[in-house]
């Protein structure tokens, strides 16, 4: 599904290259649950953003379902992205001015899904996450765990093939964190959605079926 070849990214400081990522090779099968680990500044998030098509590398190739991502036109890439990728953040990043319902609905608006269909899909999702009673609340009225559930629901609404999560439990307590990880596991096994998560926690990483360890922009360890 995902092939990264010789991916490097750097910043120039005083003429010297300062590598954020160096020569990353990575193949990810469809249906995988990959955890990316590493200390702060090791390039985890940058790698995730490149996979998520929000960022580009300075060198190397990225194939997504066989398409060379960096060679695609902006419009084409957005299409590919919209259809296949869902994003989850540590800080949830819900839109404060929109209700739970509207937040979950927003990605569908950008994909031109028709009104009636949209309604059904959002209702489905609310049902699945047991949030029907909370659909008219605003993010500020929810707990952190609930907000992250909305974030996940929003990421899943458009039925992506790939779910990217940047420290999804970083702002949650351990119980809430566990629930989220259980949910990820379920999504991965039952819905066959590929998941890539960035995490600091060994325990969370263990939910995945594969772990890569980054240090100073290089893959240190690749545990299958």
């Amino acid at each position, binding site marked *: 599904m995902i092939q990264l070849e010789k991916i490097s990214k750097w910043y120039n400081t005083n003429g010297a290259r300062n590598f954020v990522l160096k020569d990353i090779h990575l193949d990810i099968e469809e249906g995988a649950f990959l955890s990316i680990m590493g200390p702060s500044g090791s390039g985890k998030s940058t790698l995730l953003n490149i996979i998520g098509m*929000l960022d580009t590398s300075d060198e190397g190739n990225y194939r997504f379902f066989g398409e060379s991502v960096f060679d695609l036109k902006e419009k084409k890439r957005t299409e590919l*992205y919209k259809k296949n990728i869902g994003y989850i953040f540590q800080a949830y*990043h819900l839109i404060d001015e929109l209700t739970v319902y509207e937040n979950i609905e927003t990605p569908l608006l*950008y994909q031109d899904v028709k009104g009636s269909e949209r309604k059904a899909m959002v209702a489905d999702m609310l049902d699945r996450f047991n949030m029907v009673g909370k659909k008219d609340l605003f993010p500020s009225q929810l707990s952190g765990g609930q907000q992250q559930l909305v974030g996940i629901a929003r990421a899943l609404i458009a039925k992506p093939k790939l779910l990217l999560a940047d420290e999804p439990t970083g702002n949650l307590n351990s119980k809430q964190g566990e629930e989220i990880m259980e949910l990820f596991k379920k999504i991965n096994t039952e819905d066959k959605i590929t998941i890539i998560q960035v995490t600091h926690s060994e325990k969370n990483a263990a939910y995945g079926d594969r772990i890569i360890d980054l240090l100073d922009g290089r893959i240190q360890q690749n545990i299958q």
Partner: protein
Amino acid sequence: MIGNYYKTAYRNLWRNKSYALLNIAGLAIGIAASILIFIVIRFETSFDNFHDKKENIYRIASYSLNNGNGKEFYSGGVAFPVGPALQSGFPQVKKVARILQREGEPVAINISGVERKKFITSIFYVEPDFFSLFNFKWLSGNAQSVLTAPNSAALSKSTAEKYFGNWQNALGKTIIHRNSQNEIYTINGIIEDVPVNTDFPLEVMASYSTLQHSDMKDNLNDWVSTWSEACTFVELDKNASVSAFNKELIALAKKHKPAEYAKDAYMAQPLSAIHYDERFGNYRHHTFSKGLITALELIGIFLLLMACVNFINLATAQAVHRSKEVGVRKVLGSNRWQLAIQFLSETALLTAFSLIAAIGISYLALPFLNTLLETSMQLNILSANFLIFLLLVFISVTFLSGIYPAIILSGFNPIVALKTKITSKMIGGISLRRALVVLQFSISHILVIGMLIVVSQMNYFKNASLGFDKEAIINLPIPDDSASHAKIEFVKQKLLQHKGIKHVSASFASPSSSGNWSSDFKFDHSDKPTIFSANLKWADADYFKTYDLRLIAGRLFHPSDTVREFVVNETTAKLLGYSNPVAILGKEVNLWDGVIKAPIVGVVKDFNSNSLRSPIGSVIIAPQKNYYGVFGVKINAAEEKNVLAFTEKLWNEHFPDHVYAFSFLDQKIAAFYKQEEQLSQLYKIFAAIGIFISCLGLYGLVSFMAAQRTREVGIRKVLGAMPRHIVYLLSKEFSLLIIIAFLVAAPIAYYAMHQWLQNYSYRTPLSFWIFFIAIAGSMVIAWCTVGYRAIKAALANPVKNLRNE
């Protein structure tokens, strides 16, 4: 999708209420100002545009080169015989109509034989064809039947109601003009009230043929004199060449005028120019120059622009808070275009709110504007023009203020935006906003400096020494009939008996008057008339002490009822080549080819006989009782009330058939500058709006900067900064911006106002103080605006600020 945008927009505005309010208030006031300007301009440009033949109607106007002091002379009127002369030999002229306005005419109505109602009004003497040129509707009668026979008259509907209760009653009734048995006019027709936007304020009309039996009958064949109130209108064939017609008109003037008037000429002035050309004037005595229209349009655009600048400033400042949403939406699949549309529609929403508020403000403000400008303009919200204007304003304001923030906001990189690393530096930066603030303050400085100069010119008008005494002088009218004239001396003596009255003089007009009588004359037995016209001031010998005119050579003339001696002003002596006024004494002045001949016996110091717009011209003074029309009464100001009661009683006793009306000379003179006065009031309002909008913008910007620098302020305070240091930190930049804005604005304002002042012969100096007041004033206002926010930031608890970081 749009629904989602509007929900976000609406909730966002609601959450940032103060920001939204600031934005809407600024925009609404800017838009309201431009709506009002639009209404004024539309009103002023609509004058006489409702006549079907407007394209082909021309007024025959007079002009001449090298009159008096080498200045050109213009008049909207022509000699009376011009009209009939155009009737034959001019195939391109389809119709000719003459009309004469006589203002301040007394008319009386007999009620039940004994009782009388008296009015002062303007009477128009009109040829019937006037109504086939212009579209004024008849309620009863028609022009041909009513305005052909002498002493036949028509009234406007509301005048008829005023005189006779209702207009049907008026038909067949009579009005007595000037209390003369020869001038009893029969009302045979009624016209509908003329619209407010016409320069023909027709109320009382009499047939033109009436003039043949009036005091004007000798003038009807006079080719030399030009009466500015005697206008001649023609309808030209639509294929006629106007320039060819103008050449024929010049030839016509040459053919009929005596050789010494070779420089006098006629021209065809299009109807569409009459309302705008102050040189030729019109019957409403109110012109609205194209320059003024341009100035108002510019002010309107400026104010709108300033409001848009506020919007851009505040919106980009706000952008920091929106960066997260931009990031999220991009991650959720929005492209840049969709986001730009979202932010633009948000701007559209705010603009729409502002537009509604602006309509409300204009609606409330219009009555005040009408009072100020003495107009009766209306805000017709549903008129097509107005709707198109609103739509244009809506679109241009939305785009002008929305496009830049939309481009900036939609361009955020989602990764950076989600980490909320967006700082003001990334938002096109502070430098752009600084430039916008400079632009804003430049505009308001220009408005303020302009306003101060107009106001100081007004004060100059009010306080300038005119060379004669205008304080505590009352003018009383002297009726225009011989019976009344016979009583002049008697009434004068009666007036002088009151202890509150110091001097009384009977004269044709006061030293400075809106009604002037000018003529050239032959000097010192020359066979050619002077190249300039002298202002003829017929007055008795007490004129000089009543108005405190100073003699500089010779003596005053002796009391007399007819001209035996002349007194002239200094300028007359100079124009005739006598730098030493004594040398002119004894020389003869010959008026109207010997009708009046008398020597000059004295020279008075120059005084302003016209408004201060024009330079002092030649004035000659002589006694001629039958021309007297006004008493000048110098009173003891403390006795004003007593004197006024006394004069009214006395006047009504001796002139019972006439309408009593008095006026203070200084007020009459102030009225010369009514248009300037109105303009200065208008400028004051616009300048205030300009400053207000700028300050709103400044306030918003400072709030934003204070919020941005919370951390810096916190750290500085922890390091020991005092509140005053913080206030200084936050306000020094704006002071600099205002100074830069001033440096930009001052030369522009100087140039523009210097040009404007050229309209006046007597003008206030463009003093350093005006500019100083402008900069000092805006500085103080800006400091007050900034101060509140700065002090608030300075007094905030640093620990709290830093913890939030």
